[in-house]
């Protein structure tokens, strides 16, 4: 669907060249929600603007739906841009227009007659749940409602791709969840490909199928969300995953439980998919002569299934502990013995 090849963007500052985006290649499938995560300054905002050429790439190619975007002439580009919706962190609505008029704006740009716009606009207002607010001005809406207008506006010309530039970063957690749910439902309903830029891992975790981690203009890691969560390879990725369960990857906080006592052992369990629902710890405590002391645990829902981690301290005879660990391993749960640092 979207194919990005060796895409680069350089800015010439006074006496140095800044590589905002450096040789990025990606394939994004149709109907996929693809997340790009990175800290501020990683180049992700520039990257997303290179796709619809709000920023002109220095080199590289972008294909959207087999159209060679980076080769389009000015007029063709304008036409094709209508098929790529975009939503922004600060919504970027026209304050001088009502909700209705804001959503109708892209239709005006596409040259659709006033009376033919009505049906489409009303349908979109319904879709994003703003019925009754048609004649309000943006200043009368809450942040979440403004972003809903932004989404409706982005969908007006039936795009095949939706670019989201930090779309939830200016919203409170609850509103963020609502907007993310809306994006997922649109993705399913319209089979829309969504590219989402964020610095928040929980946004990726909630709605993305695949994720790319960006650092200093480069993609350092790409993969299915679940896979990246369970097995982050790069340092940056690990830091992002840590946002979700702080104890993980932070051995200092477990320090007081890590002793030389051979009758105590701290283990970390990874639950993936169906195994997350088993009452494994009770089983272990019943079957073996060990005490299980739960230190920390979390379960995250992703689009591909749930994923949980659990830190448990096992207290008992050395051999019993080892047997217990063996048992857990055999039941299909990944176990990691946490060592001293």
């Amino acid at each position: 669907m979207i194919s990005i090849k060796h895409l680069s963007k350089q800015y010439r500052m006074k006496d140095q060249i800044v590589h905002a985006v450096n040789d990025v290649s990606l394939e994004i499938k149709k109907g996929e929600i693809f997340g790009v995560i990175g800290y501020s300054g990683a180049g992700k905002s520039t990257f997303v603007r290179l796709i619809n050429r709000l920023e002109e790439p220095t080199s590289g190619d972008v294909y959207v739906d087999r159209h060679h975007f980076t080769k389009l002439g000015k007029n063709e580009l304008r036409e094709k841009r209508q098929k790529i919706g975009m939503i922004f962190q600060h919504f970027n609505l026209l304050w001088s227009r009502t909700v209705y008029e804001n959503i109708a704006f892209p239709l005006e740009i596409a040259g659709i007659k006033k009376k033919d716009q009505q049906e489409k606009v009303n349908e979109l207002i319904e879709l994003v749940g703003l019925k009754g607010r048609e004649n309000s001005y943006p200043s009368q809406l809450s942040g979440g409602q403004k972003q809903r207008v932004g989404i409706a506006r982005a969908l007006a010309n039936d795009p095949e791709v939706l670019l989201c530039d930090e779309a939830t970063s200016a919203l409170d957690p609850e509103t963020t969840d609502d907007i993310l749910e809306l994006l997922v439902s649109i993705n399913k309903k319209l089979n829309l490909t969504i590219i989402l830029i964020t610095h928040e891992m929980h946004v990726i975790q909630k709605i993305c199928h695949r994720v790319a981690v960006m650092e200093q203009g480069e993609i350092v890691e790409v993969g299915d969300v679940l896979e990246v969560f369970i097995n982050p390879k790069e340092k940056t990725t690990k830091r992002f995953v840590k946002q979700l369960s702080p104890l993980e990857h932070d051995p200092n906080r477990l320090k007081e439980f890590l002793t030389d006592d051979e009758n105590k052992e701290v283990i970390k369990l990874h639950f993936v998919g169906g195994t997350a629902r088993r009452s494994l710890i009770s089983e272990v405590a019943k079957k073996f002569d060990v005490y299980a002391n739960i230190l920390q645990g979390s379960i995250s829902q992703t689009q591909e299934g749930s994923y949980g981690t659990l830190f448990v301290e096992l207290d008992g005879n050395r051999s019993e502990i080892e047997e217990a660990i063996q048992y857990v391993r055999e039941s299909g749960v990944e176990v990691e013995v946490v060592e001293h640092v």
Partner: protein
Amino acid sequence: MFEELFPNVVMDDMWTATYETLYMTIISVIGTFIIGLFLGLVLYLTDQGNLWSNRWINGITAIVVNVFRAIPFIILILLLFPFTDFLMGTIRGPKAALPALIIGSAPFYARLVEIALKEVDKGVIEAAKSMGAKTKTIIFKVLLPESKPALVSGLTVTAIALIGYTAMAGVIGAGGLGDLAYMKGFQRRDNDVVFACTVFIVVIVFIFQFIGDFASKKMDKR
């Protein structure tokens, strides 16, 4: 009572002068609006990083605007005498004051327009671009509507400055309340005429200010 306080004021003259002042002000506000808006758009659009970024056009326009803004109005009228004569066929009367009024205030308004346009959120322009908008669409459907309240309050400020300019133009024979105050009031030492003209001008200024504020507030949906 009125006759005692203003023995030398002839109401017919006052109304004629008021009409002339209003005529000069309104026509020159319209002219200033059109030319100023155009110049302001050129200044904004050709600025670095904007839609028609062009250093030369921007530089030349800025110089023209700055030069005409630097010339004191009373001198500008004198300088423009030949031009006015050519354009209007006369250098006396309210009509003859129009070229100088418009040329004198359009650059001022152009700067206010530029400031107003700069206040438009860059993100909104970006959003319009992402929807595939043409530059024409961005100007007429984004830039101008989004800066409308500032354009109107800028025009109000300009209109009030223009009322002052018409009085100055009056001194060299353009007609209007300034002319009346100077010729019939000051020259003959009839201070009551000067005073009456002042009151009329202040009232006109207040009316313009009120209309401008009202319109600007009404348009502002922020």
